[in-house]
């Protein structure tokens, strides 16, 4: 009697993780490509400032989408921790810790997303600066936001690497999903590090190192949503892990 209920709840955790993960991806990608890319004119502070002011509602919507991305990913993190714990408690904890740190970094860096709205606003005290100066400060704020998300992506990349390792070692999810996640995670770290060490190289490398991560996350999310996990194998691996832990003590 409990087993059917347990089966269902485990499966619904997996599906929920998949659904939340898809929402974070949709929100994050649309904020980045439909809002940020549309508003920020590379190297042009004046156009960027005008764009932000003329499309302020869209710009704010982008911020809301980003917050949905970050907060929902905490849910994904906790669910993945629970789902992958039977494979290795230590490594799933490690994976969760990296995601938590990354989320804290990217969420606090998003203050630089909103700062341009204050800088470009009509507060009288801003008259202490020339219009071109506030525009430059607003543009700089976006640069800082980008640095913040690159820092956070190092932590998310390591998180994804551990998740990939755990999936590959699991008996209840396809190994290929794990390998994709691990490669995607390494790519995220690589992408950030080339940004830090050599921005011109990073610009050329970006599509090649960014896409694998997106592909990995999307395939994992879809698999979890549509297929879930193999419940009886999950149970088996969990029981084995418990037996080993008892044997160890």
């Amino acid at each position: 009697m409990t087993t059917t209920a347990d089966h269902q709840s485990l499966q619904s955790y997996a599906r929920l993780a998949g659904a939340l993960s898809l929402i974070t991806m949709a929100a994050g990608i649309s904020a980045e490509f439909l809002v940020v890319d549309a508003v920020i004119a590379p190297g042009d502070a004046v156009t960027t400032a005008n764009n932000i002011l003329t499309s302020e509602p869209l710009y704010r919507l982008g911020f809301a989408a980003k917050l949905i991305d970050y907060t929902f990913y905490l849910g994904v993190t906790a669910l993945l921790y629970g789902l992958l714990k039977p494979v290795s408690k230590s490594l799933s904890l490690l994976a969760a810790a990296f995601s938590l740190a990354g989320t804290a970094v990217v969420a606090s860096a998003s203050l630089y997303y909103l700062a341009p709205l204050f800088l470009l606003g009509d507060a009288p005290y801003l008259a202490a600066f020339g219009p071109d100066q506030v525009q430059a400060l607003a543009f700089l704020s976006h640069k800082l936001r980008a640095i913040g998300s690159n820092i956070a992506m190092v932590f998310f990349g390591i998180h994804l690497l551990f998740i990939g390792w755990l999936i590959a070692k699991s008996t209840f999810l396809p190994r290929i999903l794990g390998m994709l996640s691990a490669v995607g995670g390494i790519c995220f770290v690589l992408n950030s590090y080339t940004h830090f060490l050599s921005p011109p190289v990073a610009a050329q490398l970006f599509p090649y190192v960014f896409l694998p991560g997106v592909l990995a996350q999307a395939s994992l999310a879809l698999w979890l949503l549509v297929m879930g996990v193999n419940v009886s194998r999950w149970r088996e691996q969990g029981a084995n892990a418990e037996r080993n832990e008892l044997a160890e003590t």
Partner: protein
Amino acid sequence: MTSENHAASPILKARIAGALYLIVIVAGIFAEIFVRGALIVSGDATTTANNILASEPLFRLGFAVDLVSVAAYVGVTAILYELLKPVSRTLALLGAFFGLAGSAIMAGNMINHLSPLSLLGDAGYLGAFEPDQLQALARVSLRLHSLGYNIAIVFFGLHLLFLGWLIFRSSFLPRILGVLLAIAALCFLTNNFVLFLAPALAAKIPPYAMLPSLIGEGSLALWLLMVGVNAEKWREQVGAGE
């Protein structure tokens, strides 16, 4: 199959934690002393700006290495939580929270480390400011970085204090390591509160006053790496806890 599922032994975990901790210390010292310490001239925005631009690769390397240090600390935090859980789950968790929060502050604060390069670059939009203004902004950014760094260290200090207590109460690690770690923690905390409350006084604290912190963290890292933990006593304490 079963051996694959077998949880890594406490000794292996301890050694990995020790190796990561050593990376934290070495990478952190390299970035703080050999990169930032070498390039940043206190009170002189122009020289600092020139130094950064003249040694941009070194400045970027310092940033990259420092981020490795922070990421390694997340690993240390998680592994030490697991190792010390048998002593007290509650306190181990509390300690890990401080370690994780400190790491997030440290990593987020690193934006201020890289922003001088955006300010001192040759982007056209920066023409809205005079060169001395940009240099001053870059110097302010590094001041903010140093402030954020010290805020994070308060959290790391509390983390170390909990670790010290847990190690002291453990049966599987030498008590002296716990004492040394607690002293290291108190050094960090005292130094930083003096820094926040009376910066003029903090400037008079000689650099070697921070030596106990290095000794405490260094000896824990080396012990974990070379000796690990007493696995038998660790298992005993796990059994006793249950």
